[in-house]
């Protein structure tokens, strides 16, 4: 296997050697087996949505097949494939949110699910016109949850959260018919329109995709984040550690992987139960070491400081250490390969969600009704497995970095309050942030998000772009696997201010924050929309006026496509470090990277070289600053 893929990550590279000895197959083996990618699929030119196909269009114009059997052109096929990615991404985030709303609807002060952030609940109740006077919190929560659940399928009206956007943006969405209606409806409509013989116009297809994506960012994801905070607490700044070195030699190691906090929160509770800890000691371990991965890892690190074992590409490597008693997962971004891989070790691969069963895994269904009991059963399985660990097969890379996490919008604002003069300004706003951007102390802000992808060197693009930007006084907020890359690279420490330009360094010192702020999981990108919107509102502008960008340096999932689309549709330029499968249509590519700007004031840029990408971002920020005259 080629080690080039991990050239940037010496820590994990040692494990790939071990994989050979252990006879374990990894993603890079499978990538090699895949050989060269299919050029049609890579360009988005292959269609298999009906049984007359598959059809494929020649990438050379005027040569070979120019239309599918139904007559669909390259433009139509590419736009349909793109639209389906948006629909899938939106559906994933939305179903995630639906589960949170469901447990909120079950919340009960004596039950497993309780309202933790009453203040945030009351704020949302007020925003949604729910009566709060003289009512029990649980009652209020149930009503709010019901409203949230109706956001998915209400027959009339548009998404409630779009009113949080700056006025000019709301107006634009209305004019362009981009206002998302019910979330599920947008997904269904988009799937409908991609059916054979429906939408045959790439422009219209993209517009529908944009509307659907807004149902994610300003719908599903925002509901997911808001309700998660209400139920499990709004994250506050705290310390943690990241990278495979957080796995402990003498503890029962449990890897929590997936996405949904309504599950992971209960696992955290279960692992803290004295009864469980005692049991771990009985089997000869020092205790239970719960570590996180991907977005579930982000959720529990933001709220509890649970250590981060790694990001997307490291999921197999965590098992390879031979020290993982159990990998417990719910939904999304879980390699089915983990089933086969864990067979090489004593590791129990436990799936828990009926939405994501995996052949070869141990399936223990998580029941929300008996949430804690059911996670305790799962944790018990892990503990019992400790005795089976083959010590001769254990190799834990001794590398981990400290990180500060937990920067919700509320926490960021709390920090900003430190520099507010009580005689000139009011507290609890983003004005200090907008001031330093306007004065030029900070040149702009970047939200860096997304996955890992073996098409590029793991974490290299994330870390390179972040370093380039902070060096040039651009503050970075991050979520998802990008955030975990930053944590591993030590960019979430106070010391990282030394890597910054003078302006950002000064801001970090005065405000008391690291230059790269962990804002949470992928659904928490809604936090980024929130903070950008607040700055725009503060200045009476639109998002598209601000020197602000979104970046997905190593994206891979359909969720990432939905995210990128709603970020652009929200008026924020988005940079993709992996080129999406659209190049087969010059027209569609031109729309994404160029003409879309006429519609929403922002566009996509595809750039795989992280250094070049960072420069393009910086140039664009200066261009926006010039337009503002700042």
């Amino acid at each position, binding site marked *: 296997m080629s080690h080039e893929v991990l050239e940037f990550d010496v820590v994990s590279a040692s494990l790939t050697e071990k994989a050979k000895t252990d006879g374990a197959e990894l993603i890079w083996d499978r990538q090699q087996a895949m050989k060269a990618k299919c050029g049609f699929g890579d360009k988005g030119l292959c269609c298999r949505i009906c049984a007359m196909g598959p059809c494929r269009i020649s990438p050379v114009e005027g040569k070979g097949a120019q239309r599918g059997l139904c007559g669909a052109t390259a433009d139509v096929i590419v736009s349909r494939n793109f639209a389906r990615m948006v629909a899938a991404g939106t559906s994933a985030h939305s179903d995630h949110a639906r589960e949170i709303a469901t447990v909120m609807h079950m919340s009960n002060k004596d039950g497993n699910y309780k309202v933790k952030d009453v203040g945030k609940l009351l704020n949302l109740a007020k925003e949604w016109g729910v009566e709060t006077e003289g009512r029990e919190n649980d009652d209020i929560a149930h009503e709010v949850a019901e409203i949230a659940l109706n956001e998915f399928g209400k027959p009339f009206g548009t998404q409630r959260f779009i009113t949080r956007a700056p006025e000019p943006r709301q107006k634009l969405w209305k004019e362009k018919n981009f206002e998302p209606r019910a979330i599920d409806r947008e997904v269904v409509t988009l799937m409908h329109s991609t059916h054979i013989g429906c939408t045959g116009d790439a422009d219209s297809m993209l517009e529908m995709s944009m509307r659907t994506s807004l149902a994610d960012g300003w719908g599903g994801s925002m509901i997911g984040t808001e309700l998660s905070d209400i139920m499990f607490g709004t994250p506050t700044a705290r310390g943690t550690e990241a990278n495979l070195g957080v796995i402990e030699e003498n503890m029962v190691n449990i890897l929590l992987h997936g996405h949904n906090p309504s599950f992971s929160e209960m696992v955290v509770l279960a692992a803290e139960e004295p009864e469980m800890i005692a049991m771990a000691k009985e089997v000869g371990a020092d205790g239970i070491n719960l570590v996180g991965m991907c977005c579930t890892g982000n959720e529990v690190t933001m709220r509890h400081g649970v250590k981060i074992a790694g990001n997307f590409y490291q999921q197999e490597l965590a098992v390879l250490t031979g020290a993982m008693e159990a990998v417990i997962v719910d939904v999304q971004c879980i390699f089915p390969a983990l089933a086969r891989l864990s067979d090489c070790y004593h590791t129990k691969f436990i799936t828990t969600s009926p939405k994501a069963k995996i052949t070869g895994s141990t399936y223990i269904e998580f029941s929300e009704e008996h949430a804690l009991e059911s996670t305790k059963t799962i944790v018990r399985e892990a503990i019992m497995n400790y005795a089976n660990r083959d010590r001769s097969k254990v190799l834990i890379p001794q590398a981990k970095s400290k990180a500060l996490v937990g920067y919700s919008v509320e926490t960021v604002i709390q920090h900003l309050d430190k520099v507010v003069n009580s005689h000139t300004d009011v507290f609890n706003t983003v004005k200090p942030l907008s001031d330093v951007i306007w004065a030029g102390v900070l040149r702009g802000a970047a939200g860096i998000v997304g996955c890992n992808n073996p098409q590029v060197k793991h974490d290299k693009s994330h870390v390179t772009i972040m370093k380039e930007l902070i060096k040039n006084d651009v503050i970075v907020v991050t979520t998802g696997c990008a955030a975990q890359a930053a944590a591993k690279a030590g960019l979430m420490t106070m010391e990282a201010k030394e890597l910054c330009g003078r*302006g950002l360094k000064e801001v970090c010192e005065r405000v008391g924050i690291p230059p790269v702020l962990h804002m949470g999981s992928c659904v928490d990108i809604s936090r980024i929309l929130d903070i950008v919107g607040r700055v725009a509102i503060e200045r009476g502008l639109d998002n598209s006026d601000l020197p602000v960008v979104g970046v997905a340096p190593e994206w891979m999932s359909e969720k990432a496509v939905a995210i990128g689309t709603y970020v652009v549709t929200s008026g924020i330029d988005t940079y993709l470090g992996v080129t999406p499968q659209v190049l087969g249509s010059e027209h569609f590519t031109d729309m994404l990277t160029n003409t879309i700007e006429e519609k929403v004031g922002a566009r996509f840029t595809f750039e795989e070289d992280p250094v070049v990408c960072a420069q393009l971002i910086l140039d664009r920020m200066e261009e926006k600053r010039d337009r503002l005259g700042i």
Partner: protein
Amino acid sequence: MSLFDLIYAGSNAAWGLAEQTVADAIQQKGKDQKVAFPSTAYSLPVIYSATGMKINTLGDLETALGVAKSLIVEEEDLGKALNAGLSTAVSAEIIESVKYALQEDPYEDEPGIGFVPDPVIRSLGVPLVTGDIPGIAVLLGESESPEELAAIVKDYQSKGLLTFLVGKTIDQAMEQDVKLGLEMRVIPIGYDVTSVIHVVSVAVRAALIFGALKPGDLAGLLEYTKQRVPAFVNTFGPLNEVVVSAGAGAIALGFPVIADIDVPEVPGALLTQKDRSLTVKTSLETREIKIKVKEIDIPVAFAAAFEGERIRKDA
């Protein structure tokens, strides 16, 4: 124009003026004409502390001009903008030093005292260290309301701060019967904006004398002034680009600037406070100055600043 562009324009203007001033002086007196401030062991203190370079003649000032020029790098970067502010400080010191090269006492005919001699700084050292002088206020410009300006000065005075006046604020304070003088802790410096350098010179000599800093250790100097010299600037009235770039110099030294007009605000460093009844509170909070002794509610302002006051017979 962006804030940084404004600073660069001001720094360039100040430098141009300094260059012209030096050239004129050399033409008049020759390169060998002696350049020195009265009663100091620190040559031209700003240039000496920042670079370790001692200036003795008008000819030497040409080298200093080179230093000032090299500090102006017009990039959109805070560090560079602050350096440009320091450049303005150097240019101002050059201009002021030429005044002393051409005249025995250039401040003879005005209320401003100009250069502050070493012994005064030494005498201020102890009360500064003990917190008896809790802060240094630099007031600059011309207030729309002389009454409010006087109230501000008196407020600082009653809190024991040392106040330096630059520009029209001097006349305004005098017209409002504010008592001036070292023992009153209200010191008029000069009418020209460049004379503000004599306050900076106090701060940097404090670093050399009390902080035992090595001349030329610019980073150490800036750290010392930021941490140990509790100074801040209040500007009154409209700001021209030279004042803005001088303000950047103050910020580089760690001294926040509080203006009474709209400016592009930088939290903790550059603020707008239009309500002049709040200027004092805003300034003290920004510089994190806590007044040790509770103000005593007596009809006349009560503070150490009045200890040296002579009560005249006719009063």
